């Protein structure tokens, strides 16, 4: 029985004084290949249910898998980028268990012969003390290829879970999508910063995969999924000390359904607090799967994982071994992009951003967008202002990503150009941006069509100034008497008169010239 009672938790800082957290992170990445892992079916997200299926990915009797070469290439590139060694000979294996969303009732995966093993990823975490960041090395155990399962939709229950549902529907479009599972070695020595390390690791991995152009890495759509294993052991010294490393690992729990960077951090933090409470009370941790609930910020018990669970792995007899030649591996190594950490350092220095500014850009996932915007001609400051200011604000308000508006780096650069040229002020530029988002065209087209432009005609501005002065004789008198700051009230009215399409600075000059 699953319990609905809220678990006891210990204050995080208290927990970390007495316990040393150890994590293991398993990340599943859906590759962005055009076709599935073992058949030619399309992989696009959001298609009509069961429209992207064939005898192979439906597991129909007699159908056979054929390995997607592109997926193997992606796996090798990911392995190389994670500093892993690439196996000259690796095999697929069948992981046998029954579940309705798994067409064959086994998952074709890799077991003891993964394509990549023994690497690391350096991630940036906030410094222990003081501003800035420092590097934390996460060791990679392995990266292996497998196929995704279908997706179950449980209808009629209160929770969307299978328990209590009236019936279930299965969409097999996702069945057979290529996955790479990346597994870390136990992450020790992070101490208090364990939740931040977890988040930074997933963020760094996401950036790396994006730079490799192997996946769209959208956590909210499930193309990047993280399972966080957490265990605690008694704290005997500094987290990085030799005596702490000697302490045996505690029992772990595996938290699934962690679908955002923020959730990774929160879920790890929560589990540390919860484990501490269980251990403080003298109880044992149950080895089990836990579900993360984004809304309430807690985990609940899922299925218990005992050692009796037996997937009866054996080598997949329908596939031949994957044996990339050394030449192939080296050719793929040559296609690796600049490592994200190095690239970030280079761009930060090029753009003159502060550490804080750079971190905001990275966290917003806007690095590429800003880079392309700068390349298209915008200043780094303007590019950051538009993407992290205006667009991020709108994205947050609408629960979207900044890239979901149809606004391109070229658009932003063009907009910046119009401001720099004096054709638009910030207020007008925002209106132009609205037009671009509404699909009315490029910034110039929108400005033309909507007639948005700072009025350059001094005659019209002068007429407006005269009109406002006439209408406000007492304010005008104050200015004449030397209270120059009263001009602000008149400027506002002039701008209103000009429907915003005037240069406020010029209006001020004119008013002062006439009255002083």
């Amino acid at each position: 029985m699953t319990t609905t009672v809220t678990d006891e938790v210990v204050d995080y800082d208290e927990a970390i004084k007495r316990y040393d957290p150890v994590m293991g992170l398993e990340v599943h990445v859906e590759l962005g290949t055009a076709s599935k892992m073992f058949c030619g079916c399309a992989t696009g997200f959001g298609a009509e249910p069961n429209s992207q299926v064939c005898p192979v990915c439906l597991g129909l009797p007699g159908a056979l898998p054929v390995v997607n070469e592109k997926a193997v290439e992606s796996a090798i590139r990911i392995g190389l980028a994670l500093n892993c060694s690439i196996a000259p000979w690796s095999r697929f294996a069948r992981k046998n268990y029954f579940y309705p969303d798994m067409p064959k009732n086994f998952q074709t995966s890799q077991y003891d012969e993964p394509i990549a093993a023994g690497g690391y990823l350096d991630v940036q975490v906030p410094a222990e003390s003081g501003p800035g960041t420092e590097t934390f090395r996460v060791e990679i155990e392995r990266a292996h290829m497998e196929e995704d399962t279908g997706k179950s939709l449980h209808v009629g229950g209160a929770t969307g879970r299978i328990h209590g549902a009236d019936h279930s529907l299965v969409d097999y479009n996702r069945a057979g999508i290529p996955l790479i599972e990346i597994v870390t070695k136990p992450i020790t020595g992070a101490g208090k910063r364990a939740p931040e390390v977890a988040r930074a690791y997933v963020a760094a991995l996401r950036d790396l995969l994006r730079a490799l152009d192997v996946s769209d890495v959208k956590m909210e759509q499930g193309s990047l999924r993280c399972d966080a294993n957490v265990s605690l052991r008694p704290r005997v010294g500094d987290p990085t000390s030799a005596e702490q490393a000697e302490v045996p690992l505690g029992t772990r729990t595996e938290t699934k359904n962690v679908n955002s960077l923020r959730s990774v951090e929160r879920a790890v933090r929560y589990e540390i607090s919860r484990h501490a409470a269980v251990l403080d009370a003298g109880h044992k941790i149950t080895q089990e799967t836990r579900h993360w609930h984004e809304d309430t910020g807690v985990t609940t018990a899922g299925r218990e994982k005992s050692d009796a669970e037996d997937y009866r792995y054996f080598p997949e007899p329908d596939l031949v071994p994957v044996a990339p030649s050394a030449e192939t591996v080296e050719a793929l190594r040559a296609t690796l992009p600049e490592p994200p950490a190095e690239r970030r350092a280079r761009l930060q220095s090029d753009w003159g951003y502060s550490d804080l500014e750079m971190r905001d850009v990275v966290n917003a996932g806007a690095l590429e967008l800003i880079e392309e915007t700068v390349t298209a001609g915008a200043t780094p400051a303007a590019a950051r202002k538009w993407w992290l200011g205006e667009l991020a604000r709108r994205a947050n308000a609408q629960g979207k990503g900044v890239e979901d508006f149809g606004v391109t780096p070229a658009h932003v650069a063009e907009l910046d150009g119009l401001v720099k040229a004096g054709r638009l002020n910030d207020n007008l530029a925002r209106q132009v941006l609205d037009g671009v988002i509404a699909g009315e065209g490029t910034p110039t087209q929108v400005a033309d069509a909507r007639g948005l432009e700072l009025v350059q005609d001094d005659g019209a501005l002068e007429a407006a100034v005269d009109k406002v002065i006439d209408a406000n004789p007492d304010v005008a008198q104050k200015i004449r008497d030397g209270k120059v700051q009263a001009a602000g009230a008149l400027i506002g009215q002039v701008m209103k008169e000009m429907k915003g399409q005037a240069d406020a600075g010029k209006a001020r000059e004119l008013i002062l010239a006439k009255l002083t």
Partner: protein
Amino acid sequence: MNTDITRASAASLADLLARGEVSSTEVVQAHLDRIGAVDGDVHAFLHVDGEGALAAAADVDRRRAAGEDLHVLAGVPIAVKDVMATKGMPTTCGSRILQGWVPPYDATLVTKLREAGLPILGKTNMDEFAMGSSTEHSAYGPTHNPWDLDRIPGGSGGGSSAAVAAYEAPLAIGTDTGGSIRQPGAVTGTVGVKPTYGGVSRYGLVALASSLDQAGPVTRTVLDAALLHSVIGGHDPMDSTSIDAPVPPVVEAARRADVKGLKVGVIKELGGEGYQAGVRARFDEAVALLEGAGAEVVEVSAPSFDYALAAYYLILPSEASSNLAKFDAMRYGLRVLPEGVSDPSAEQVMAATRDAGFGDEVKRRIILGTYALSSGYYDAYYGQAQKVRRLIANDFAKAFEQVDVLVSPTSPTTAFKLGDKLQDPMSMYLQDVATIPANLAGVPGMSLPSGLADEDGLPTGIQVLAPATKDERLYGVGAALEAMLLEKWGGPLLAKAPELGVKGA
């Protein structure tokens, strides 16, 4: 004319069709008539597609009339084992669990048959999921041996061999995981070939044991087998284990039928204890004929073959337990709701369906395989069996350094009575003791009739084995031996079979 057409070989039918002396429609109709007349007794077919076969025949006749360049076997009908997926035609694998399943796609082999213009008469009976050596494990009742209706036709492909032996089809497709083409061939007096593993696409062959399964020809003559082999063989990008090379020159070899100077190895380990005297006697005579025709015969030892059966019955169930997991009532086939459960879960429906849908032999092997793959037992069972498999492959490699082909009796006995071995799985498994090594090593094998056993007057078979990808050697030896035996018998062995009672005649 119609009464004789069904006795003709595929090669001679092909000649008659090419010369316009008979139409494909007539040939197909004659076989449909024959099926109607004798299959009530033989029960070789699970499904007869008269309409589809006649339509395909009419199409070939039309194309021939239009002067199109047709495949040599175009218009010659064929029966297909019910383990191959056929679009629009039921495919049950002899199991209740697939009752009524109509595949939405054709196996690659079936596509090749259709493209070559061979009308498909229907689907033939088999042991459930090809597990068995007698066709008694079919959920739809056994097939009867045309030589003696009280006896088994071999298995698992007893339906295909019986159909060919009873003149219900000139050609048939079988599949051979441990002898399911060759052993039925031996006990029905017909020819059966298991090509090199990977020589014929497995795409659409409902897997029993993926690393052992291989489809191949079931015919009455060696040349017919070669002609059919060349239709179904060749690389298939849909099957990763398919060999990327042209089909070996099997037809040429069958026509040359030459063994002069050929080195033939008699396998010491296959043919001693447990082999029926009449089987052994016909085998020895056949070997003597080969020697007389200029072959050099030596004895060859393959010591690991003694462990082949044990290794096979770990590897096969292991793979089968996983391959058969997909039959769970969720997407197709039988669905049984558990009794006395008001709101059953998916797991309960799966369990109830598998309980009702699978027969005892299938369950026995699923349990065996599940156990052999279990954590803690894997190394001792599956792992060890794979090592034995390598030793057997090594024995073959060593033997083929000394000789060009190997020979043995195909099956230790002639056809036994229906029901005789049903309660004794081990004695049933021993039927395949001589055929299994070839599957474990992936090498090609052929069984052809060697005569009739003195003690029971029933057909016996001789098996020829060749190195992987050298399938043509089987045909060279087989055709040469067949010609000498035919001369000795004064005609085909099947001519000695009793005439079946004909319904409605």
